[in-house]
């Protein structure tokens, strides 16, 4: 496999950034990493993952859809869509990479979301295999192998060098564009690192968590479970889980009056909010229990039922780390499975 010494990563980033926009995960403060547009000198984070997920690149938190100009009694509708520039997102973990597959199922099915497609077509995802999973990781539960991530191109870190492998044509094109900086390398040490990682994976506290009985055919049983009251009791209805989650995809569309026109934009919404999907007659889910239940039923039952068994969760562990009252999908899965 082609590789580059880790000490030369800066050169690699400079070379990529010279031709297209590059985003890498970098430290914002000790313990917290975020994706930032690469500037010379920026260093790759040592954190396992970023606080906000990589879905931001294809499904940003706010996005303008159209502009309206009102003159007298006429309204002019402006299509403000622009072709997106090519960009590379580097260092995406296996869990976040799988989330793109899930989002594609939602946004790229008919009718195709042109805003999402625009970014997806122009973006190259370069993933990075994990070697130090955290106690909150459970990607294995959803059939994801952190030592072999998806994405257009995958990177592997053996401690001294980063190895590159192409998974798609786009990935191959990416590797070809930096080929002058790479050299052939021996993967013996890498194989050792991967073997060690697999050992740790087997020892993770959540290694035995399985998707077992979840899926469309158990809908009524789970929906009517008496465990929801206890599970949703402490939920604040804040929306943190939905915003850090790489697969949550609900959005709201609103109009903003700028004083000299209207901007129609969409922004992330959360099914945890009390006014979620509020309709003319009111809100369909009036209690936090119903809203809480909806979120997990969607991820564990409705989504797989509609998408050939693909679950709406990738086991990244962000909700485990960020929920203010420490409720999360793992606790829900375990409670529902408890007899």
């Amino acid at each position, binding site marked *: 496999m082609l590789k580059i010494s880790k000490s030369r990563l800066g050169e690699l980033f400079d070379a990529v950034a010279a031709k297209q926009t590059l985003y890498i995960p970098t430290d914002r403060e000790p313990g917290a990493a975020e994706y930032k547009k690469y500037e010379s000198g920026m260093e790759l984070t040592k954190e396992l993952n970023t606080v906000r997920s990589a879905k931001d690149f294809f499904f940003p938190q706010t996005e303008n859809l159209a502009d309206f100009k009102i003159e007298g009694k006429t309204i002019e509708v402006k299509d403000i869509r622009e072709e997106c520039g090519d960009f590379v997102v580097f260092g995406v973990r296996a869990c976040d990479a799988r989330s793109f597959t899930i989002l594609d199922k939602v946004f790229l099915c008919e009718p195709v979301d042109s805003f999402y497609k625009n970014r997806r077509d122009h973006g190259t995802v370069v993933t990075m295999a994990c070697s130090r999973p955290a106690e909150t990781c459970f990607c294995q539960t959803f059939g994801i192998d952190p030592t072999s991530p998806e994405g257009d191109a995958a990177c592997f870190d053996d401690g001294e060098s980063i190895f590159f492998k192409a998974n798609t044509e786009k990935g191959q094109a990416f590797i070809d564009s930096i080929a002058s900086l790479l050299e052939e390398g021996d993967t013996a040490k890498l194989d050792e690192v991967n073997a060690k990682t697999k050992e740790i994976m087997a020892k993770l506290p959540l290694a035995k968590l399985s998707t077992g009985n979840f899926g469309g055919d158990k809908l009524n049983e789970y929906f009517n479970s008496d465990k929801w009251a206890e599970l949703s009791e402490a939920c604040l209805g804040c929306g943190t889980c939905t915003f850090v989650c790489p697969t949550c995809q609900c959005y709201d569309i609103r109009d903003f009056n*700028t*004083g*000299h026109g209207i901007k129609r934009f969409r922004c992330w919404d959360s099914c945890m909010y009390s006014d979620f999907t509020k309709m003319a007659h009111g809100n369909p889910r009036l209690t936090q229990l119903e809203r809480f239940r909806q979120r997990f039923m969607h991820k564990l039952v409705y989504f797989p039922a509609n998408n050939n068994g693909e679950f709406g969760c990738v086991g990244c562990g962000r909700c485990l780390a960020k929920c203010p009252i420490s409720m999360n999908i793992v606790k829900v899965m375990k409670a529902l499975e408890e007899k």
Partner: protein
Amino acid sequence: MQVNENFEPVIVAFCCNWCSYAGADLSGTNRLNYPTNVKIIRVPCSCRVNPMFILRAFQKGADGVIICGCHPGDCHYTSGNYFTRRRITLLYSMLDFLGIERNRTRLEWVSAAEGAKFAATMEQFTADVKALGPNRRLEDLRCRKQ
């Protein structure tokens, strides 16, 4: 700070109906000029002014916001302006804490008989805000006129 010579600030003035709005009327009937930059919004009492109004004014393009009310002790509703005083002091202190320029906000007591004071206050405030340049720190980029 480099300020464009042609820059004319947009000033929003919240004036209470009973004293300061009448004071503004008086400056008009006395033919005292005050800058056309000032857009007056009449409120029943200065304590009707919600901090959201002030932020909204900045959002929609105001460069300076001034609140005018009755002198303490003379509020038409007896004690409204006492509440205004506390509320606005804390709000302006918070805006200062966040780095918003101090001279963009002001509170002034103007009675119905003080037409001259109204005109002079608006003149001074407009000049102060003009020296600061356009509001960039509390601006909503979507509302900026191209």
